[in-house]
């Protein structure tokens, strides 16, 4: 397991070196989007309209932060469960998105899209919302303000701690449940 410091936008070269289990400290600009925002992005693509941010080399963080208290750019901001975005992710990867950040398993379609487009799936620690918030230096809503916690935000992050869960070579980090040992 290697450790890397990467800066956005991410490139093919950044992605091919990563293997499941590697630790990555990410710095730069990332975009938040969860369920409702993904639906809106897809609707824009269907209509041939421009997206609120450039997908090329982008990192999408599956998060719906809590409101920012006074003196902080953002509230708690840990990852949400990723499988709900699986329907939308392959299309976004095919248009240049290089990574997503979330927690939990991905579909076979997403794993294939990671291979096809030299992209990765990063895991962040779910429930560590206060801890991860500390790595977010700036936050501003750039689209769909009316969606509240589901609006798209542009975040400036510094040394955001990530684990490579699925790499672009077919590697996966999650433990396979030992059903036999558990008596199934």
């Amino acid at each position, binding site marked *: 397991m290697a450790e890397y410091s990467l800066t956005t936008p991410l490139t093919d070269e950044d992605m091919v070196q990563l293997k499941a289990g590697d630790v990555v400290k990410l710095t730069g600009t990332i975009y938040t989007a969860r369920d409702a925002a993904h639906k809106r992005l897809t609707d824009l693509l269907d209509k041939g309209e421009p997206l609120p941010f450039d997908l090329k080399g982008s990192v999408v963080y599956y998060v719906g932060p*809590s409101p920012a208290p006074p003196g902080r750019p953002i509230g708690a*901001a*840990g990852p949400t*469960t990723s499988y709900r975005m699986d329907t939308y992710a392959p299309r976004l990867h095919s248009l240049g998105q290089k990574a997503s950040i979330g927690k939990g*398993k991905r579909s076979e379609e997403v794993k294939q899209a990671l291979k096809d487009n030299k992209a990765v799936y990063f895991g962040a620690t779910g*429930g560590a*919302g*206060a801890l991860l918030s500390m790595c977010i230096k700036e936050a501003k809503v750039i689209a769909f303000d009316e969606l509240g916690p589901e609006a798209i935000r542009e975040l400036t992050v510094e040394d955001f701690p990530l684990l490579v869960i699925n790499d672009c070579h077919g590697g996966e980090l999650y*433990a396979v*449940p030992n059903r036999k040992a558990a008596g199934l």
Partner: protein
Amino acid sequence: MRTIKAETVIDAVAKMCVSANRYLPEDVRKRFEECAAAEDSAAAKEVFRQIKENWELAEKSGLPLCQDTGLAVYIVDVGEDVQVEGMTLREAITEGTRKGYEEGYLRKSSCDPLTRKNTGDNTPAIIHFDIVPGDRIKITFMAKGGGSENMSRVTMLAPAQGWEGIKKYVIERVAEAGPNPCPPTMVGIGVGGTFEYSALLAKKSLMRKVGEPSPDPEIAKLEAELMEDINKLGIGPMGLGGKTTVFDVKIEMRPCHIASLPLAVNIQCHSSRHEEVVL
């Protein structure tokens, strides 16, 4: 008949919403320290380290532990000899939720199921009332996150499937959920009653403190057995492998129809936030 002012209820509920979202209860912290010490793998230890750093930071910074500050779920025991003055108890709890989630900078996660439009104030809250003897009101609050709730299930087994069937179903559910519900998780199990009642039993079981077994020694034995077997799955903290897939298992049981064996599995993430107040 004792009378409690609605304001008293509102303030107590609002305070609970805020503090439960910022302070991980002592029973949970204690269990995590034990689990962390028992883990061998670096990844599992690292997750527990981050969980601990997170609860320390939440306390210091005033940020909630998790951005998913949940749907507000309440189990309320209402004494037969007490009444609320000014508004109904349901209205007062709703108002307290609205106030707590707004003033505490907590995320509002309640939305229309189809249009997905956010209600904007985290209401309606989920409130379960029980009428009990006495002149007090006990309100237990739980901030229930969506990620772990989504991994929960209700099923109707055949009576012949018995304890073996229950065990298999629960273990398979935890295996299928894998890393999704933010393990280590707590598993609440409702056995018996009717279809809807089993789910309520499962939810209520999660309100029991960590490390507090069922008062029924036979059920306590089943809880321990199930916890040991589930942990053999090796899913581990955040699904990265390890000994702690679940940090507690609770079972609530009650009689059911002779034709039925209702079973509900309610999963609770590691950010197990609950608090209670007696008025």
